[in-house]
Each structure stands twice: as C-alpha cells, then as structure tokens.
C-alpha cells in the first residue's frame, strides 16, 4: 500500500476531521492550518458525526479503471452537519438520490489496484432513513 494512502487511514476510515478553536470552523478533509485564521489557527482533531445531506451528485457511467466493477456508481458532495463538504460515494440505487437527501457515513471497500490487488477502504454514505 502506498504511504500516501496509509498516512491518511485514520481520517478516511473513521471520518476524523479537524476543528479550529480560534474561529469555530470544522474541516474535512483535515487541515493543519485554518485558511480563515492562518497563523492564528488553533487546530485539533475531532470525530465528525458522519451525518449530512447531499449538495450535488453524479451517476458515473464511464468509470475509471479501479471502479469498473461498481459502475454505474453514485458520487456526491455531502455537507456534514458540522459544516464541511466532502466528496464521497453514495451506496444506493441511482434513481433514489436527490439533492437535499439526508445521508449517513458507513465503512466500505473503495477499490482495488489492478495488478497488485491491494484493496482500499474508506468512508461512503447511505440514505439516512430515520430522518428523511
């Protein structure tokens, strides 16, 4: 597995983001510097709730190599309840997805690297039926 991938495992698997104590903004993906406060940033790691809503989405038909097995699949921009927007896959029927729908995070397989057969995992989202 590539170091650039495993370095981020904690954040990818568990949806750990960061929070700036100076201005009260949450970040995901995590940032070590707050773009609003820069040198005044006071960053700490936080566990995000994994709950949010769909801002926009696409159903991908012409899939990249690692994702051929899944096509068509749904990618979405999801705004977490804490504020940050995250790019992720949505596990649902393509015809189910709507802008504004409530979703929640789950842990899923992302893809395999062709010859090496390495399997990548990460966070995906599913419809949050309890609310919507």
């Amino acid at each position, binding site marked *: 597995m590539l170091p*650039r991938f495993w370095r*981020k495992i904690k954040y990818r698997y568990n949806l750990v983001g960061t929070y700036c104590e100076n201005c009260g903004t949450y970040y995901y*993906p995590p940032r070590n510097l707050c773009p609003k406060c820069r040198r005044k940033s006071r960053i700490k790691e936080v566990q995000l709730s994994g709950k949010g809503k769909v*801002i*926009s*989405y*696409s*159903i*991908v*038909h*012409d*899939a*990249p*190599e*690692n*994702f051929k097995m*899944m096509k*068509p*699949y749904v*990618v*979405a*921009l999801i705004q977490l309840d804490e504020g*940050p*927007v*995250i*790019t*992720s*896959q949505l596990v649902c029927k*393509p015809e189910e997805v709507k*802008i504004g729908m409530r979703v929640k995070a789950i842990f899923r397989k*992302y*893809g395999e690297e062709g010859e090496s057969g390495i399997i*990548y995992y*990460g966070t995906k989202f599913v419809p949050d039926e309890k609310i919507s």
Partner: protein
Amino acid sequence: MRRVAVIGVGCSKFGELWDMSFRDIVLSAGIEALEDANLEGREIDAIYVGNMSGGRYLAQEHISALIADYAGLAELHIPSTRVEAGDASGGLALRQAYMAVASGMHDIVIAAGAEKVTDVGAEMAMDILSSSADREWEVFCGANLPALFAMIARLHMEKFGTKPEDLAKVSVKNHRNATLNPKAQFRREISLEVALNSPYVAEPLRLFDCAPISDGASVVILASEEVARKYTDTPVYISACCQASDYIALHSRRDITTMDAVVYASKQAYKQAGIEPKDIDVAEVHDSFTIAEIIAYEDLGFVEKGRGAELIREGVTELDGEIPVNPSGGLKACGHAIGATGIRQAVEIVLHLRGDAGKRQVDAERGLALNIGGTGATAVVTIFER
C-alpha cells in the same frame, strides 16, 4: 510596465496525431510562429512552455530544455522554463512571457504550450488529466474530472433551471465553428439530437458534453511595443493578463456553481485594461465540459449569475452573435491539448484581431481568453486589443 505586443502566432493540428512525436508537434507550431513573426531565431531572449504532464504522458521531464533544443536554439543558450497548472499550464506560460517583456527583462519572448497524450491509452489519459483535481480526496472516491463537472452541472440545473438542451447547444455551436477551423480535431457538424442521445459519461453530462483529450502545440511570440514595430504592421496588444487561484477541491469552494478564481482574475483584468465585460467582442473560454462554458459566461460578467444558459438559447455567443464565444470550436471541437490549450486560445484571438481568421473571422477590436486548471483552482484571463 512596458506595453506588450504579439508579433507572431503558430499552431499545430489538434487531435490524435499518431504519426507525430511530441517534438514534431512542437516544432510544427514553432516554425509557423517564427515565419509569422519573420524571426530567424537568434532574436529570442527566453522561452516559457506550458506542459501539464510530460512525466506521465511521455515519461519525459525537462520539457523546457527539450523544446529549446528541438527548436534549434540549443547553441543560443537562452533560458527556457516550463510552468504547470494542470490544463491552465498554457495560460501560465503566456503570463510568464508577458511579465518578462512587460518588466523590461526581455524584449522578445516565446510562450509555448504542448502536450502529447495519445502515447498512453484513453483511460490513463483521463486519469492523468484528473490529477488536476485533488487526487487524495476527490479522485480517490471515483470522482474524476467528468464526475466533478457533472456535479457542478447538476447543481446549476437545480438552482438556475439550466437544461440538458442548453449544454447540448454549446456542443453543437462549437462543433459548427470547428468546421471552419483547419486546425480543429472534429470538423463536422452535429445535431442537437445526436448530442442529447449520446451515452452518459457522468450524469447529467454525456459524451458530447466532454472535450476530447488531444495532442497539440501552440506558440505565440511576444515583444515590447517598440521592438514589435520592427516586425509587424499589425501588432495585437495584451492589455491585461491576470491569474488567480482557489481551493484545489470542489468540496472546499464557497459555491460550486461559481468559479471564484475566474471572477477574481477577470475583474482584475477588466480593471487593468480599463474596460468592462460588454467591451469584449470575441472570447475563447475553457469548455473542457459544456457546463464550464455556460458558467464562464456568468463568471466573466457577460451575463449575471444563473442566466448563462440564456446566452446560448438566444444565440448571443454564436459566430454571428453579439459576443462570439469559442469561434475556434473551443476545447470541445478544436480539441483539448491540455498544456497547449491556453496558448491556442491566445492564437485564436490574435488571428481574429488581425483579420486572419479565415472563414470563421468575426469583427472584433478586443478579445478575451479564459484558461482554467482542473475544476477552476487556477484561472488565467488575458485581454487582447488591436
């Protein structure tokens, strides 16, 4: 700052140039530009070249020296510099060359852009282009460049009522314009029905909403106003060349239906040129995906936010419209040779301002070129006047 003029332009054919190497393609554009400027070669003070990914497309780095070498300039030992900003690399090269002349550092400078993509397969070509977005937090999830622009399109449709037909009309227009451009990759008209029934790439975007990834090279030669007079009676001046950046990933942006980098760079450019959007007579914009052209109409101030589709519906941006946009055929139909695109756009605007654009000639005194990197994390806006 000195006034900067374009004294020569050249452009290779764009497309799948199987029988041409990277070096051949660059040379064909370079020779055309030198002939156009009536330069011998010895007069050149510096080269800036935009190239996104020689490393991954060709397994060749050090493109700057390679280009100077194969342009026959090795023994002149002039400085040659490669710049990179995804598919805005050409725009950056133009700006670096502009600054070098404007500052008084150099008198005659070449701005080039080049990319050879067909030595790798189409899927790899798209993967490489998608690295202009955030590899770790976007592309990792299966959100490649078409998927990201698809999400922009989806929200623009939801918020402003833009229709699939509006996107298709951009493609139809650009294909029609390309039939008049001998350098273009796709020189045949398409019908609205064909565009609207082409297969989905990433919903709501279909095949005809996506620009191809092409081979190609383009060159412009810049000179100070004083030097330019010695070489041409029809100089075209660069009245502004502004660059802006934004968050690399779409998910970090303020609003995905606006490219703030385009808004910022164009406002600066209008101010520097002392003009307003309505003063632009012709524009080349970065239609890597059809939605990007509609958003460009808005972010460049041709129309207010959310009303971009009206311009294509009403024919305002057609070749015979009020502001012709992408007379070359744009990235969609002229082809998108990534690092070459920003320079090719400049070549097109210069041809129109000189009256050398052949059958696609429009009547124009001022033109604008907009080159974007990735989903809009870099924007370069250049204004030309005759």
